[in-house]
């Protein structure tokens, strides 16, 4: 039941509030872009270790989808989650400090790039096992229904995760029990070096929803407004009908899979990447804002300068911040006092 038709509707008259939020979306996308560029730089300098998966090129997905959520909602993501964390409102300082492994990091320096958490914002990680967090979202949605709350549980995962059994089992239960969950597949065409067509027997991920009679949509992931609207429809469906939705959001990864993977080479050509870079979600949105007279070039420059300052500050903060105390090694394995309630 593709709902792309609906999304073709003309944009609403742009009132001041809308204009302001649209500007904020651009700012968030710029913040993510600059944050990721800085993270890449810090990684090369050895200030960030382990695996580091950048979100550059996919900014519109996190910003547009998270803009449609409420403060009470639950979010769970994969290891490629810096963008989602920033879009949800985690500070650049807390995120950068976590990448640096510092005590001031959003996970106390124990999680790192793949495990950003902020429970106070319903941002429940940052998970490293492909597909592993999808059932968690089903469980968060189950809890919402169990308590008859107005919360929606949203998870983001790559197109390669849909072939995994965890996806299949989690979506079947969500549909069977009508849980308020939204499954957002960020189809960036590759799982590491494997193109979608080499891993999945069907190429329209959204059709996997048919196995569960679940609402689904294919969305242009380079257009933040399209992403926002499709997610808003799914949120509405979840809040009112308690029905889950599978969104296939088509986007592209501009960088390598992780810092150790070149941008192009074995599995995709420079030309392919260049082609996709032409639809950079930031320029696409900046143009739209200009066309609609919401923000001109100067305004974009100003926002960019603003986020660059924020990212530089986060970098200095993270660099200067102290490491966790040695005793931190032994903390948080179990609840304090052995966990007896």
């Amino acid at each position, binding site marked *: 039941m593709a709902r792309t038709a609906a999304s073709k509707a003309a944009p609403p008259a742009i009132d001041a509030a809308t204009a302001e939020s649209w500007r904020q979306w651009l700012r968030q996308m710029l913040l993510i872009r600059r944050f990721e560029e800085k993270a890449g730089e810090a990684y090369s300098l050895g200030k960030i270790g382990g695996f580091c998966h950048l979100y550059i090129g996919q900014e519109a997905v996190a910003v547009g989808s998270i803009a449609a959520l409420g403060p009470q909602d639950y979010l769970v993501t994969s290891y490629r989650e810096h963008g989602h964390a920033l879009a949800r409102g985690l500070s650049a300082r807390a995120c950068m400090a976590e990448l640096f492994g510092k005590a001031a990091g959003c996970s106390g320096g124990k999680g790192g790039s793949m495990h950003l958490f902020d429970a106070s914002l319903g941002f*429940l990680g940052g998970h490293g096992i492909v597909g592993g967090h999808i*059932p968690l979202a089903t469980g968060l949605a189950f809890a919402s229904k169990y308590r008859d709350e107005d919360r929606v549980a949203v998870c983001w995962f790559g197109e390669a995760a849909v072939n995994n059994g965890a996806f299949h*089992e*989690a979506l079947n239960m969500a549909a*069977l029990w009508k849980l308020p969950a939204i499954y957002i597949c960020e189809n960036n065409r590759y799982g590491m070096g494997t193109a979608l067509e080499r891993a999945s027997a069907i190429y329209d991920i959204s059709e996997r929803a048919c196995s569960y009679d679940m609402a689904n949509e294919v969305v242009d992931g380079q257009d933040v407004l399209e992403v926002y609207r499709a997610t808003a429809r799914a949120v509405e469906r979840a809040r009112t009908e308690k029905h889950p939705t599978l969104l296939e959001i088509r986007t592209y990864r501009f960088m390598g899979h992780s810092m150790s993977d070149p941008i192009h080479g074995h599995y995709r050509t420079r030309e392919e990447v260049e082609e996709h870079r032409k639809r950079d979600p930031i320029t696409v949105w900046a143009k739209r804002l200009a066309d609609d007279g919401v923000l001109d070039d100067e305004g974009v420059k100003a926002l960019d300068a603003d986020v660059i300052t924020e990212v530089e500050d986060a970098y200095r903060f993270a660099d200067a911040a102290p490491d966790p105390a040695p005793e931190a090694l032994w903390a948080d394995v179990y609840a304090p006092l052995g966990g007896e*309630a």
Partner: protein
Amino acid sequence: MAVLTYRDALNQALREEMARDGGVFLMGEEVGVYQGAYKVSRGLLDEFGPMRVVDTPITELGFAGLGVGAAMAGLRPVIEFMTWNFALLAIDQVVNAAAKLRYMSGGQVACPIVFRGPGGAALQLASQHSQAFESWYAHVPGLKVVMPATPADAKGLLKSAIRDEDPIVFIEGEMLYNTKGEVPEGEHLVPIGKADVKRAGTDLTLVCHSKSVQVALKAAEQLAQEGISAEVLDLRTIRPLDVPAILESVARTHRCVVVEEGWAFAGVGAQVVDEIQREIFDELDAPVLRVTGADVPMPYNKHLEKAAKADPPKVIAAAKRVLYLE
């Protein structure tokens, strides 16, 4: 005190905790309409309804993960695995999610969940259905592993497990469900992490847990007839292991045999041996011996199966060896 079966003691614990805390729910295969594959959840669906007693598809990975998510949201899921053999399909969620969440979130996200069901062998279920994995789960920091041997401990430990703030692997025994014993009514809590002397003795210590407690008690009885006084120490919790209780007993008896149902290699007993020889080496009058399941997949034929299991004769033989009587 009422005499209950191990099965009904678990049922009582579930009923009491579900009545006490609306956040506690039971989920798994056949726990509801079917009243439980082993009837542990008998009557709970009628009493608490389908939102709190949830029958699942045969998707261990999925519903274990669902439980973890629900626990992250603050509910108190009790996830039943029809048997722990099938939990191998869910082990990624137990080890990579439940056991890691608190740590990798820097202490922000708790995962108060109980994974429970029967472990080990029953009768003639063959190799895929007759495995004991407690040493695997006990290997993993972030998990607690609880294995009651008696109805009273089953009730008291399950209640404590449900109230615990950390993920618990709670392993029962199909062969224990029908065993009977006195069980305190109402608020009966057994602390996690405390072993229990099931029979006092002076000549040697038999360390055991779960089904092997009965094996050890039978052996101790027969040894008594030969004038040998064996202490039977039931670990009850495998992680955290009650090392002080083990050392206290063995330091008194100076001899020890560890009995377990599972395979020997890197089993629970290997860790017990490691603790004893490291901490009270000079107290030992003999090497610690172990009686375990045979190092083979479980055969179906009943005679072969019997030969594969730890039993009183094997424990008695080991006891006599540590006493240098043979």
